[in-house]
């Protein structure tokens, strides 16, 4: 009919399409009828059913998110549409009256309106240049598109011209925009009736999909609480005890000494130990009571965020030992692609336990139980954290088994867990920064920035706000007519990639790039660093993380030391303000080409191995092989190409990126890449 119709729709995105079979499975288990028909749109089916329902004297409500469906509204047919208002989603019912109030026309007239104005999201063209306002006014006056054209002489100027020129489009658009209310589908009222759900089936699906919130909302909990794989859906009720007597504390310690393991949760406010024997969480008021346990190297400590534990314990003069099971790190070892290894996440993923639900249930139970006076005083301070050590206890067993299965228990025990103490110590000690020198460095940056600003103004012949992407875009691409590589919604893109590409078109680009780098340096590492200088120690205590990167590298924040720029001389100079304390000296050790060495080892490439073993230049050696020249005749250019390729493999730069880096012909670099890959 109209080829371009719905050309804008690229079919469902993968992520949505994948969900459709699941949705159908759920609806089936809920005994909700699904009606689909090849060649008909959902709108058509909804329309057909709505009108059919109306004829059967039913009270019809169409639930949809699509305003196109407004044309279906009629006596006994209303449309219920979700609306987002101030971040809240509300339903809004549209009736004939509501449509008339909002649009000033009757629902059916909306088809005519759409014929004139079109609909970009559906690629319905409409009459070019006619928007909603004009279209509605025309239909108000003449009722239909026919009416508009019968009275075309009453229009004048541009509008008349447009309407006359696009009469075909108007009628076509009306046809395209009309919902088919006569689709050939089966209409059986009995089948459509709401039935009881097949609760067991729905529950199984929800459990499989981990839709715990839904299980709760639809109250699908089973009588027995053991899940399909034996994992705990909902644990026993955990006892909670605070204000412990000397005897009670002694008893807890004895159990720990006997079991040689302590499950606990520790943060600035809480120290809670879980006892398996008594199924009780004990709220310990004074951390120091357990100094001997923490310092006993024979007792395995099992908890959450042990790096922070170390720091807290050290601050309390507790020289903690054998903090060797951190559930967050175990979670990271099992899957490094997760954002945050919270107890909620870990419990959900590995214990099939929803903390929020559990706590809600607890609350209800407690409300229903008459507590005696003594209990009341005890529960005063109880918050959610009393469940944590219990979860840690459960996770300890499950996660250990999983790591054994996956053969990563050694990595956990011998590398990650011992590393936690090292990182804690680095964070605790911090590094001294010469504040005055940092401020001086900031001044130096400011001076260089001012020179750059002047130069940029001179080179462009205009004073403008360099920080404004809009103004910068206009100067570069309109005034200087440089190649505009990318456009964004708001104007020209001036991001680094774009500027790098047009670097050789005009000398100003290089200065803009430097300007930005220096400004970043100044704001992130001069102004940004100052607040991190600890007033007591005069040092910055960066936080080191071992559960962030997907590759296994360590990262740091507050501030991030990893990305202090080292390529620019001025960036390197920033390192001058990091100094050893009185009577000390810095010793720095750098692995030489560690990744290439690992590559040589893993790939078992003889040439690379020989080069490293003979202490040869690895890149020159690669170039010699690829370009088939003796190693002493390798040119600088050939060497740098081979080097880029070597690093391309290590860092996974695509051959496209590689080509750009070399600023050489794409084909050639691709060939080199292939040759090297083959040789490996």
């Amino acid at each position, binding site marked *: 009919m109209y080829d371009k119709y719905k050309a804008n729709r690229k079919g469902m995105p993968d992520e949505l399409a994948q969900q459709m079979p699941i949705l159908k499975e759920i609806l089936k288990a809920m005994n909700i009828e699904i009606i689909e028909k090849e060649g008909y749109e959902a709108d058509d089916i909804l329309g057909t059913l709505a009108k059919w329902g109306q004829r059967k004297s039913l009270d019809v409500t169409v639930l949809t998110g699509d305003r196109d469906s407004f044309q279906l509204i009629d006596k006994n047919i209303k449309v219920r549409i979700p609306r987002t208002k101030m971040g809240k989603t509300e339903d809004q019912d549209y009736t004939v009256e509501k449509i008339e109030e909002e649009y000033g026309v009757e629902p059916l007239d909306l088809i005519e309106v759409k014929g004139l104005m079109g609909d970009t999201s559906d690629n319905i063209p409409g009459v070019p240049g006619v928007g909603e306002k004009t279209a509605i006014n025309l239909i108000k006056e003449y009722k239909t598109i026919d009416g508009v054209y019968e009275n075309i002489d009453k229009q004048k100027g541009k509008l008349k011209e447009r309407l006359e020129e696009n009469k075909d489009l108007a009628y076509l658009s009306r046809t395209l925009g009309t919902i088919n209310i006569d689709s050939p589908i089966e209409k059986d009222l009995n089948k459509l009736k709401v039935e009881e759900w097949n609760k067991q089936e729905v529950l199984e699906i929800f459990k499989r999909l981990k839709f715990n919130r839904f299980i709760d909302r639809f109250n699908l909990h089973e009588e027995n609480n053991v899940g399909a794989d034996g994992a705990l859906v909902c644990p026993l009720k955990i006892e909670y005890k605070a204000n412990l007597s000397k005897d009670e504390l002694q008893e807890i310690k004895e159990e720990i000494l006997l079991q040689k393991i302590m499950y606990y949760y520790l943060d600035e406010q809480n120290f809670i130990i879980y006892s398996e024997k008594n199924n009780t969480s004990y709220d310990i008021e004074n951390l120091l009571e357990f100094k001997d346990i923490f310092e006993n190297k024979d007792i395995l400590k099992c908890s959450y965020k042990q790096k922070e534990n170390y720091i807290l314990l050290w601050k309390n003069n507790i020289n903690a030992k054998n903090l060797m099971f951190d559930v967050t790190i175990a979670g990271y070892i099992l*899957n490094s692609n997760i954002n945050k290894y919270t107890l909620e996440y870990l419990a959900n993923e590995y214990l099939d336990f929803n903390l929020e639900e559990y706590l809600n249930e607890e609350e209800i139970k407690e409300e229903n139980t008459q507590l005696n006076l003594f209990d009341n005083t005890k529960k005063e301070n109880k918050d959610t954290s009393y469940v944590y050590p219990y979860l840690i206890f459960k996770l300890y067993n499950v996660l250990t088994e999983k790591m054994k299965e996956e*053969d990563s228990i050694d990595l956990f025990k011998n590398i990650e867990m011992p590393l936690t103490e090292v990182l804690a110590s*680095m964070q605790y000690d911090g590094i001294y920064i010469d504040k005055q020198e940092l401020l001086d460095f900031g001044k130096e940056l400011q001076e260089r920035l001012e020179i750059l600003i002047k130069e940029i103004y001179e080179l462009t012949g205009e004073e403008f706000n360099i920080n404004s992407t809009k103004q910068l875009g206009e100067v570069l691409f309109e005034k200087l007519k440089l190649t505009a590589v990318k456009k964004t919604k708001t104007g020209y893109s001036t991001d680094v990639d774009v500027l790098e590409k047009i670097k050789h078109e005009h000398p100003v680009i290089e200065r803009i790039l430097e300007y930005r780098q220096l400004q970043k340096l100044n704001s992130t590492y001069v102004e940004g660093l100052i607040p991190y200088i600890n007033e007591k120690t005069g040092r910055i205590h960066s936080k080191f993380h071992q559960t962030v990167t997907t590759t296994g*590298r360590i990262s740091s924040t507050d501030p991030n030391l*990893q990305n202090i720029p080292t390529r620019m001389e001025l960036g390197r100079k920033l390192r001058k303000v990091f100094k050893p304390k009185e009577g*000390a*000296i810095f010793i720095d050790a750098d692995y030489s080409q*560690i990744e290439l*060495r690992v590559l040589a080892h893993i790939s078992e490439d003889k040439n690379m191995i020989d080069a490293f073993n003979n202490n040869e230049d690895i890149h020159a050696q690669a170039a010699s092989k690829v370009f088939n020249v003796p190693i002493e005749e390798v040119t600088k250019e050939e060497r740098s190409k081979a080097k880029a390729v070597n690093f391309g493999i290590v860092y996974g730069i695509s051959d496209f990126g590689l080509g750009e880096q070399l600023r050489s012909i794409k084909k050639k670099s691709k060939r080199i890449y292939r040759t090297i890959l083959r040789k490996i």
Partner: protein
Amino acid sequence: MTNIVEETKEKGYVETLYHRRRYVPELKSNNYMVRQFGSRVAMNTPIQGTAADIMKIAMINVYNKLKENNLKSKLLVQVHDELLIEATLEEEKIVKEILKTEMENVIKLKVPLVAEVSEGYSWYEAK
């Protein structure tokens, strides 16, 4: 190298020398660009990840050696392939030795591991 992509796709994950796993669901995507990204991940994770493992072991060994020898010097920073120690002047020599020995002897690969050690009165000088 192409084998590793196939292997990763089949298993769903890729590993370092020390059995650090990284799942690569990207390899099963319907999107070409995402799949390409997945192949690169499959190729470079064993390299980058193993290098990271080696660095971590070096850190642990250096830290323990400093402790064992009752030294006052402290490991302060790890960035990229680099370690920075604040050493008391009298411990300078032994700390240098420890750093070099521990870093270079983490594991015996088919090629030597090499650590370059230098010192200075600022991080800039020491590098």
